[in-house]
């Protein structure tokens, strides 16, 4: 029930719509659920709607933490 993909907002359109881009595929979606969204932000798209604005800093941080915590060659901790 959770199929949703990240997309970048390229243009805000009238009437609570936006155009988003997924690596070259463009789609028009509704922004009713993310009234504060701005161009350039990433959103999660589900069933034709943006479900939330993504936190890019958190995305970077998560990857960084994972890379560090599970660096190769470290002794696994109990």
């Amino acid at each position, binding site marked *: 029930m959770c199929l949703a993909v990240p997309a970048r907002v390229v243009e805000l359109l009238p009437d609570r719509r936006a155009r988003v881009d997924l690596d070259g595929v463009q789609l028009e979606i509704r922004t009713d659920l993310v009234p504060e969204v701005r161009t350039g932000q990433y959103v999660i798209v589900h069933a*034709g709607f943006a*479900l939330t604005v993504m936190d890019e800093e958190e995305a970077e941080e998560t990857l960084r933490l994972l890379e560090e915590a*599970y660096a190769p060659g470290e002794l696994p901790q109990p």
Partner: protein
Amino acid sequence: MRLESYRSPELSRRLAARIAVLAREAGREIAIMEVCGTHTMSIARCGLRSLLPANIRLLSGPGCPVCVTAQRDLDRAVAIATQHPVQVVTFGDLFRVPGTQGSLEQAKAAGARVITAYSPLAALEAARAEPATQTVFIGIGFETTAPAIAATLQRAHTEGLENLSVLSLCKLVPPALRAILTGGQARIDGFLLPGHVSVVLGTQPYAFVPAEFGVPCVITGFEPVDILQGLVMLLEQMHGRRAAVEIAYRRAVSPDGNPSARALLAEVFAPCDAEWRALGTIPASGLALTPAYTLFDAARRFPVDLPEPAPQKGCMCGEILTGRAAPADCPLFGKTCTPETPVGPCMVSSEGACAAHYLYGAR
């Protein structure tokens, strides 16, 4: 924001190694339940089980909206399509599920107008395109999808659209978790919580799970690295004898969820008792239309003759959906019940536990 970073084979390997260590430390079988059909699919698609140690059992819970739609509700959807001159719009997920008198797909083959779509907005467009035809949207889904359906109805309301209605069959995840935990028979050591439902809900609605039942929870995304990270965090909670609701999927989920989405939901829908396939009636687990939106209720607009539901002998979907049995335990599995000739919902939906097991193989 490259999805591919969350599919890194290197990171996956390292996380799997950490899981192996933690699982070994635990020294017993660990049962982890995911309650999202998309998790079932993702785990199966990337062959994740084959990377996990043998003592970790991944259970598939009642998180597939297709699997948990009651036979009677599905029969109503099919009956509306066949007994009224309407065009029915449905998510593809529901299209092939067999009801007592066939599926929506079979109804279409026999002449009913049924359209598959990936957005409720398709129903809005279909209604606008044919003002003289009634359009009925089959509203299944959990808290991820319900706000989209609510927004669609709000739009229809604003436009004064008279030829659109919705069969309101959405369900809520937290009451289902409670039902599984109080059902008692299956021991569940941890929950992988649905990432996108949690985008809407945040962490608060799940707080009772660790608080009342002592079971750890991690809100998890859907890429392989996300799922492995979720598993690591669950195992680390167990190892540290802690139980809390943690967020692994931090790029999308905040503790407070999406208040705008919840506000929209509250305007259009209110919780009601709902019948779940194989789980029975769970209080306050479904969504019914609020008084302002009752005019959009397809069940009221289109009375139908419903067939007597035919109980399926031997079908173990109920036990499977609650983690008390595995697909292979069911006497019908792979024999009378296959993806081509499904008996129960767990086999019908490609994200059902039995279908995933059959299609993608179990470890």
